[in-house]
């Protein structure tokens, strides 16, 4: 019962936060110089008053700003994300079209970084100061410090251009007409480099965090007790130390997960990955207000949802935390 009322409370909070975010986004975007009419005027190569008028009318930019805000907010309340005149399609359909590509990439990166990061952290923490520990620490430092953009380009240089093992961009071989297993393998090959590029930073963080917490936890009284009871070392490391050390990792994982839809803009750009991140970037460049707001809103909603999930997972990992 307790858990249910907590959940309802959090969801209500989340909805309020979402509306606040939507409003903030709405005004922030309009504060940036240049509107869709300016962009389209720029692209048309020639413009007169009539052209500008038509565009502003189409986008509803002739209305007072509060009225524009009301139209937008009441649309969201009806689960209507609006219409992109720029692309001549509903915002929801545009985002849905790009969502699968982004989810495949970010989920792969999420799982990869979590598994690899925690594993490396555990390995490093076994014997602090050992060669393994120092090697892992060095790797983590590079992954943490090097910009994703540079790592991605280096990976392309080595694996695509020099060695020719992996495709450098895109999410499928265009025009290859693969089917079944072939198509799946083709997609997987395209997935490797962007996944790595997107994962490096988080691998580093998970590694360092797992290691630090494992070492801190190893000194706690309950670990000594477990040793005194005669429990095996692996059991101690995994059941007692790791479980307690994972709490901050869960927090971070929640943040990464919440960032999944909007957080891959760079990776999607370098690797020409047709996902939501790039859709957002293009929408920003073109001042496609409705599309940009829609993408922001989805990103915010996911962040809120993953926050709630993180809270629930907390209680599962550590029963001492009450809701």
């Amino acid at each position: 019962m307790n858990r249910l009322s907590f959940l309802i409370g959090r969801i209500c909070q989340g909805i309020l936060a979402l509306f606040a975010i939507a409003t903030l986004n709405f005004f922030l975007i309009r504060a940036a110089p240049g509107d869709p009419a300016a962009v389209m005027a720029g692209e048309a190569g020639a413009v007169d008053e009539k052209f500008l008028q038509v565009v502003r009318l189409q986008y509803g930019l002739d209305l007072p700003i509060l009225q524009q805000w009301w139209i937008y907010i009441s649309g969201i309340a009806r689960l209507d994300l609006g219409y992109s005149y720029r692309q001549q399609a509903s915002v929801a359909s545009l985002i849905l079209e790009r969502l699968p590509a982004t989810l495949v990439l970010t989920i792969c990166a999420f799982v990869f970084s979590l598994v690899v990061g925690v594993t490396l952290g555990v390995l490093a923490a076994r014997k602090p100061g050992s060669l393994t520990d120092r090697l892992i620490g060095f790797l983590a430092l590079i992954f943490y410090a090097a910009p994703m953009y540079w790592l991605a380009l280096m990976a392309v240089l080595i694996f695509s251009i020099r060695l020719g093992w992996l495709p450098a961009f895109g999410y499928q071989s265009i025009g290859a007409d693969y089917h079944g297993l072939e198509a799946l393998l083709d997609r997987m090959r395209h997935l490797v480099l962007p996944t790595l590029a997107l994962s490096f930073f988080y691998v580093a963080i998970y590694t360092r965090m797992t290691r630090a917490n494992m070492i801190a936890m190893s000194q706690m009284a309950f670990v000594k007790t477990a040793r005194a009871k005669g429990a095996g070392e692996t059991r101690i490391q995994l059941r007692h130390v790791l479980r307690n050390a994972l709490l901050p990792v869960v927090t971070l994982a929640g943040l990464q997960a919440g960032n999944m839809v909007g957080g891959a803009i760079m990776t999607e750009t370098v690797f020409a990955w047709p996902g939501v991140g790039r859709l957002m970037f293009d929408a920003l460049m073109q001042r496609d207000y409705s599309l940009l707001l829609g993408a922001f809103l989805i990103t915010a909603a996911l962040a809120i949802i993953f926050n709630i999930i993180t809270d629930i997972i907390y209680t599962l990992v550590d029963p001492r935390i009450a809701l």
Partner: protein
Amino acid sequence: MDRRAFLKLAATASGTAVLSGVPLMAAAQAKGGVLNVVVQPEPPGIMIGIFQNVPSQMVGGNIFEGLLRFDADLKPHPLLAESWESAADGMSHSFKLKENVLWHDGKPFTSEDVVFSLDKMLRETHPRVRNFLTAVESITADGPYKVDFKMKHPFAPFIQSFEVGSMPMLPKHLYEGTDYAGNPVNSAPIGTGPLKFAEWQKGSFLKLVANEQYHEEGLPSIEAVYFHVIPDGASRATAYETGKVDVLPGGSVEYFDIERLSQLPNTEITTKGWEFQGSQCFLWLNNTSKWVSDKRVRQALMFALDREAMRDIAFFGYAKVAPSPWNSSTKYYTEDIRQYPRDVEKAKELLKEAGYDGSPIRLLPLPYGETWQRLAEIARENLSEAGINVEFTATDVAGWNQRLGDKDYDIAFSYMSQYGDPALGVARLYTTSNIIKGSPWNNVSAFSNADLDALFDAGAREVDEEKRARIYQDAQALIAEEVPLAWLFEMIWPTIHRANIKNLISSAVGLNDSLGRARIE
């Protein structure tokens, strides 16, 4: 005139420049192959009656056609029109249309389509055409294959505006009476060109396939074209290096990558196919801002800039220092006008005369990437050597459009097409009637000079070539003296492609209408 006759004629007229590889045409029987081309950025739409930006033109110009096609010397050749006549006084024109032309949906192309496209739809959707058509009194169909134009006054470059990007022919049966912008046909356009629309996976690729019913015998030779959407410049270079794409259109990689890529095996580089665009790079000088409104300050800016260094450092040599505000491919170009070689002392003198006190001058760089950033930095260094205090204004493309549209700048980088004729692409930069708020592509300098207005006005209406030439040479001399804006370079946009692709560029608009005529050997 059939294609072969056209080619012969064009080849004699223009040498081998634009039509290299043509002699092989008759011999080459092998058909097939796929072209992989970069398109950058992804176009918002490819119906070029509605979307006129650069990437839309490159895709849509191969689906749609104009009545005429132009060679590298900007001479017109038959396409949808097989012949045309203009009255000596320039007050009427008539076009005889080709008879066996079908739209991609199988319906015949007739004079009704021409009248609808020009008189109805493009007048609504194409601001540039709306400007051309102000000179036209009436457009009428005389039977299914003849169209007559009556003029209000002569418009000298009228024939030149029948190129596909300016006046694409659109299907009346699909657009008449519809909401043009919202018409679902826009997402799978129906044209008459050698290639037809097949598929568009947003964010990934666009595919065109051969039009088997094309109205020119033996064309197209290729099976399909894929336009790849690759948003990052370095990744586009990689895509060529790894063999994923075969054609890098001008402007798709940064200038510093061009030399390296052009050295790769089986690779050719060409600067052709931009004669119609004839782009000129310049600095807008805001004639309404405090210091720049002084002619002496504007001349000082011209003297202060080191255009040779800019060409070598920012463009790696792929630009031509412009001796005239006219592009050399634009009619009536002359170098016989006042020149501005770099002379910092002279610049300082002029600034002193104008009483310039060192207050900041805002410079708006063009937010198109690395090359343009470098260019702006060199300009700042040059100008500060002459004692001008330059401040950068950082923007993205939307902000840049807005600031130029609102004239909220002091000096700003830009480049624009001249379309081969001063009345089409040059007058708009200088005449008083083109000071229109809201667009970065008209008289953004807000320069206003009655003599110059009169010259441009007379030039547009003059049908006598000699008189016309004199008018525009006077205009160039006047501009060189007044410096309404600071002309810098003729842009060079090299296209890099695999050497086994032949006849890739066969017109003055290059890839924008040539892809359906390319062959792979």
